[in-house]
């Protein structure tokens, strides 16, 4: 029956006989959008592309051209960013904090900050940390500056979603913990060193061995006697030949032997005593 279904699976499939032949270099993947309508001259505001304070620059250009400044650019909002910029530049020169310090002193921080390995999307100028959930970006900036002297120029927060977990005999699923991560921008690049190949291999072997040992702890019945062969035979015992002694006889015999030993010891003691007393 299964062979029948296999046969009809390909009944309606007709492969293309002649695929179109195109050179890879001729193909434009990101084709620009089609030009619709007349081609217009660039606006003065569009000319400024690379500036820290674009609004100021655009305002100047419009003034030079003798044209009315668009309301969008005729604001004082850039004064704030300029003030911040200058404050930070000054801080970099003097070595002070480049941000406004908080007012609560913490002398023994107990937060666990973990530097994570970067993902593919991160540049060397970025670093990612796992932080406690009650942390905010100001906390991290302050922490890094005061504990490691690392300036976080920008902090972004990623609050990870929780995973649904379901155990074998549960009637419902429940949520795991939420993790908070923060990515900072840094002045200087940092690249994680590669993990040495030997170290990784060793870690893998240790893990495999540990799993074997844990599996052994869950063994049932007679398999409990079979010691695991993990860690180059660390647990393996020499096998000694057993005599057959029934369980009931073992208990009885052990008691008999104990009595015998006690009595013979008593006799020995008496001998020693009589010798000592010259009896």
């Amino acid at each position, binding site marked *: 029956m299964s062979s029948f279904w296999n046969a009809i699976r390909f009944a309606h499939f007709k492969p293309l006989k002649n695929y179109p032949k195109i050179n890879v270099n001729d193909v434009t993947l990101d084709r620009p959008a089609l030009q619709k309508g007349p081609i217009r001259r660039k606006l003065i505001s569009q000319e400024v592309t690379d500036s820290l304070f674009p609004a100021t620059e655009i305002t100047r250009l419009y003034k030079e051209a003798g044209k009315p400044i668009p309301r969008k650019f005729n604001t004082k909002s850039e004064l704030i960013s300029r003030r911040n910029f200058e404050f930070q530049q000054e801080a*970099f*020169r*003097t*070595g002070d904090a480049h941000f406004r*310090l*908080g*007012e*609560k*002193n*913490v*002398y023994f*921080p107990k937060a666990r900050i973990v530097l994570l390995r970067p993902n593919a999307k991160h540049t060397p100028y970025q670093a990612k940390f796992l932080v406690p959930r009650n942390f905010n970006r*100001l*906390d991290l900036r*302050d*922490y890094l500056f*005061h*504990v*490691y*002297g*690392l*300036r976080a120029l920008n902090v972004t927060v990623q609050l990870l979603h929780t995973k649904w977990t379901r155990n074998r005999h549960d009637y419902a699923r429940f949520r795991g913990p939420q993790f908070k991560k923060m990515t900072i921008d*840094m*002045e*200087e690049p*940092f690249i994680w060193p590669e993990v040495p190949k030997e170290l990784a291999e060793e870690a893998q072997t240790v893990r495999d061995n540990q799993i074997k040992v844990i599996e052994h702890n869950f*063994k*049932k*019945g*007679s*398999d409990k*006697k*079979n010691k695991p062969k993990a*860690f*180059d*035979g*660390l647990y*393996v*015992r*020499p*096998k*000694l*030949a*057993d*005599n*057959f*002694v*029934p369980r009931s*006889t*073992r208990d009885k*015999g*052990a008691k*008999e*032997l104990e009595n*015998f030993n006690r009595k013979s010891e008593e006799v020995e003691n008496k001998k020693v005593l009589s010798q000592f007393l010259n009896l």
Partner: protein
Amino acid sequence: MMWKLPSRVISNSIKPTFLSNGVWKSFHSYSFPLLNDTSIFGDLTKAPQNSTPQVQENSSVSQENETSPASTLPKDDEELKKYHLEAAERDQIAIEKFVTPLKRKLFDLNVATNGFYKNNQVVKDPETNKVYKLSLSNREIEILEPSIYLQSLRIKSSVKKATVVNRFVRGYNVKTAITQLHFNQKKMATELEKLLKEGLELARSKGYDDNKLYIQEVWSGSDGDTMRRPDVKGRGRVGVLHHRHIHVKAILKTEQTLNRLKWEKEQKELNSKPKMILNNEPLNFRVKSFYKW
């Protein structure tokens, strides 16, 4: 929230460093103050004077130490071996743990004189020149005679299946049994064969003659923890499927036992009264001197 160092520490130790182009280098050139100069506990404690590790000038010495690390593999570790051997001896079932030395000695003397154990015989202890008459119960003789007790690991099978194979080789010479089991197609035959081969090795370690070894007893038992699952049937009914596990145990004995049993049988025959075919007892009914009919 913010983390702040004690002001004294900060004022002492944070020294901004400049590169040639006037840019303040923050991260890599920034030396962490707490580790170097001062103690965070202020005046209460003093930081160790020579905290920086001194590099050894004699590099050849350090290299030698690195090249010859003590390779402590479990197979080379004498102490570990000793520990395992002690543990194994503690768990071992040996006669010495259950029978008094005098009894063992007399038994051995008896065997040395007769080749096997003869019950109710008089033996003389050459060390003390004392004469004993040793009479042992059947259980005691069973224990004192050389034997190998074999226990298998957990096997996925059932007692019913194993018993067929066990009955096949019961009482066989071990080597004969191994040959027979090797060509038997049952799964339990393979398992039993493995067990018997292990038994041969153990017998050699004890100094027994493995050619004369025979299977005195072999049996199997449930190993517990039977998994059960539903056997769904028609018409809304359900049964239980059992996934059973077993162990196999065996007792191997030597020629001594065979000889003893043979001798005992002979003795029994010799001691038995002569058989009378006709009943020599008086008739227990009334005998009359005439025919009844």
